[in-house]
């Protein structure tokens, strides 16, 4: 078991006349849905919903920064999972780049205990690949996996040494967990602040070239092919990266990938504003790269949409661009942002988005797949596609407000979230 939450009984409720759309089961139609003690007990055909109510499998986010331990001023398990619930999520995985790093049974065990008390939705914890994320020695992966680590990652940093990468892939087989990688060749990305290209040239900001990402993906896919081990690449940003993953998949490497809502919606042109909420690592790239990410999501090269929710204190963003922290929040806005900027514009189909936000990540990480069918545990997101809402600094459940969507009006609001049979969010 790699997900943890307080053990409480399931809820009973009925959802009347909603469009039920579950790409995993193929269901798409108007239904009345009954949930008893947390389990879906009936799906009865109903009249077309008057309002744009959509009932979808709740989302799964494999890439969240909960900032615990160490930066509880930015996020806690309680606030981060409440934000996830408000965003329609029924399960999330937290990254280990905390202070201290999640690299020992002691730290992981304390987090699991906290989640059993405070988590609003089932929450899993990734442990680090290397001790202290220093890229030198492997963590005690077998012990960590037995305790409940959901997988291993040095997220925030690349595994610079190819030798350590090889041993991590070999050894993680015994732990039975997936390695997930932040791909960045540090001598190419150096002190990069944004994508290298015409915008960085015009602004004078140090460039973080896309080749710094793709060259590491190619390296790690080669090692994975050699060892016949699976691999997951986090937050793809560039056309060459999508091509590298696609090529590796074509030659039989078990490599999966994820992409963030901000990389799908934005380009580096936005950085011209010097708004620090457009500063993230890896950085926003060109329109051509964005198109490649959309194509990769459509053809299945990219299996997951993951937020990379990265809360930061206000004073870490209210600085000149180069001094600002990397990262943006995303849990509470991911669906609405994608729906507003990509589905309504015709770039992505709704059922594909729902699949990549739910079934896709659940399968990659071996988590329970949310399904809408009689007898299934209820993991549901009830969404009002006709609702407009404005993203404001004081409207977040997250403890931080460093969103690239501040001031934006979005379409599609999460009305209700049911995670593991319990109503965890009701607007």
């Amino acid at each position, binding site marked *: 078991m790699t997900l943890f939450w307080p053990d409480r009984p399931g809820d009973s409720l009925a959802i009347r006349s909603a469009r039920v759309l579950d790409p995993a089961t193929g269901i798409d139609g108007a239904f009345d849905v009954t949930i008893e003690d947390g389990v879906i007990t009936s799906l009865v055909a109903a009249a077309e919903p008057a309002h744009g109510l959509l009932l979808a499998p709740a989302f799964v986010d494999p890439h969240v920064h909960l900032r615990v331990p160490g930066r509880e001023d930015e996020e806690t398990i309680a606030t981060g999972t409440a934000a996830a619930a408000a965003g329609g999520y029924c399960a999330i995985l937290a990254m280990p780049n905390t202070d201290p790093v999640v690299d020992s049974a002691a730290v992981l065990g304390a987090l699991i205990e906290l989640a059993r008390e405070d988590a609003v939705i089932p929450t899993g914890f990734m442990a680090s690949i290397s001790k202290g994320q220093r890229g030198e020695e492997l963590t005690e992966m077998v012990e960590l996996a037995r305790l409940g680590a959901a997988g291993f990652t040095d997220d925030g940093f690349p595994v610079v040494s190819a030798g350590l990468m090889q041993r991590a892939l070999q050894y993680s087989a015994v732990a039975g967990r997936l390695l997930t990688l932040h791909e960045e060749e540090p001598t190419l990305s*150096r*002190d990069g*602040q944004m994508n*290298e*290209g*015409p*915008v*960085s*040239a*015009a*602004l*004078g*900001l140090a*460039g973080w*070239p896309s080749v710094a990402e793709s060259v590491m993906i190619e390296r790690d896919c080669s090692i994975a092919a050699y060892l016949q081990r699976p691999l997951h690449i986090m937050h793809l940003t560039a056309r060459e990266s999508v091509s590298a993953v696609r090529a590796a998949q074509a030659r039989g490497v078990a490599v999966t990938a994820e992409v963030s809502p901000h990389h*799908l*919606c*934005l*380009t580096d*042109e*936005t950085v*011209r*504003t*010097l*708004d*620090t909420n457009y500063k993230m690592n890896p950085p926003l790239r060109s*329109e051509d790269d*964005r198109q490649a990410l959309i194509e990769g999501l459509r053809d299945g090269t990219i299996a997951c949409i993951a937020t990379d929710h990265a809360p930061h204190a206000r*004073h870490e963003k*209210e*600085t*000149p*661009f*180069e*001094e600002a922290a990397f990262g943006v929040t995303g849990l509470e806005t991911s669906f609405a942002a994608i729906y507003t*900027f*990509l589905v309504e*514009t015709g*770039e992505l189909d709704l059922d594909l988005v729902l699949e990549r936000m739910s079934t896709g990540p659940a399968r990659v990480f071996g988590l329970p797949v949310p399904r809408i069918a009689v007898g299934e545990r209820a993991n549901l997101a009830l969404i009002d596609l006709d609702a407009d809402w404005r993203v404001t600094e004081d409207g977040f459940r997250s403890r931080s407000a460093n969103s*690239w*969507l*501040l*001031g*934006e009006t979005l379409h599609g609001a999460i009305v209700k979230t049911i995670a593991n049979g319990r109503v965890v969010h009701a607007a």
Partner: protein
Amino acid sequence: MTEAASVRLPVVRQDDDARPRRHLLGISDLDRDDIERLLGTAATISRSLDREVKKLPVLRGRLIINVFYESSTRTLSSFDLAAKRLSADTMAVRSSGSSADKGESLKDTALTLAEYDPDVIVIRHPHIGAPDLVARATRAHVVNAGDGKHQHPTQALLDLYTMREALGRLEGLHVAIVGDVLHSRVARSLIEALTLVGARTTLVGPPTLIPRGIEQMGCEVSTAIGDIEAADVVYVLRMQQERMSAGAAYVPSLREYAAEWGVTPGRLRPGQIVMHPGPMNRGVEIDPRVADSDVSLISTQVRFGLVVRMAVLYDLLAGGPTGDGLPLEVA
């Protein structure tokens, strides 16, 4: 750019005043008319400097704060004297010996200085976007005196003024900018300004110091020093060694750089003028024989820097497109 890519371009500078404050954060704050007006004002001011008493009473009672978080000789002295010649009160804040030493954030420093009700804050800062932050945090007009590798708009304006004084025109001029473009805020402001006034720009330097994609700013790019010969103006950039982090190795050595891209008498043709924003590394990017020759306008640039900065301060506080301040001619 698609709709999705342009979802939000927030208004970086907003104000609740009826009349929006004007800033000079970058050349993109100006259009061609603004540049013509500023250069015209500078020419008027220039005539006043020939008088015995050089002080103009136009900004009496105004407060101009110079916030310099990076070492500077000519820009700080130029802004300070420009403000004094316009009869404004001035104050200088430097990073060393200030609260910045104690870890105070720029925002807090700006809020502190804002309590003195400055009319203008002139800021130099090692990081891009610092002037924008001060503009958001205070009610002063903000002038960017150099932010990281981003912009140095008054330098570009004084360079245009110098070129026009020397050659009589800007439109159709061909300017070769030679050297370390990658680390140069001067180059970025100048390329934008030259494009705005209809001049042609060619960047010449080692490929490692020419940023990828910069031709989209409207300039040509070359690695051959011979290409400076076609230009009317050869604008030499400083090799900014202090921005070359250890191990970055942009060029194998300064010796090889000087040999391949140094501006020497033999690489110039008669009739060309040579400019440099200073401070120079004699013998690296510029041969001392060129620096000290008649074709060099390097000292003229400093002199014109003063009048152009006076013009900028006057324009922000008393002139501007509406020109409703104290007229310079009467003064």
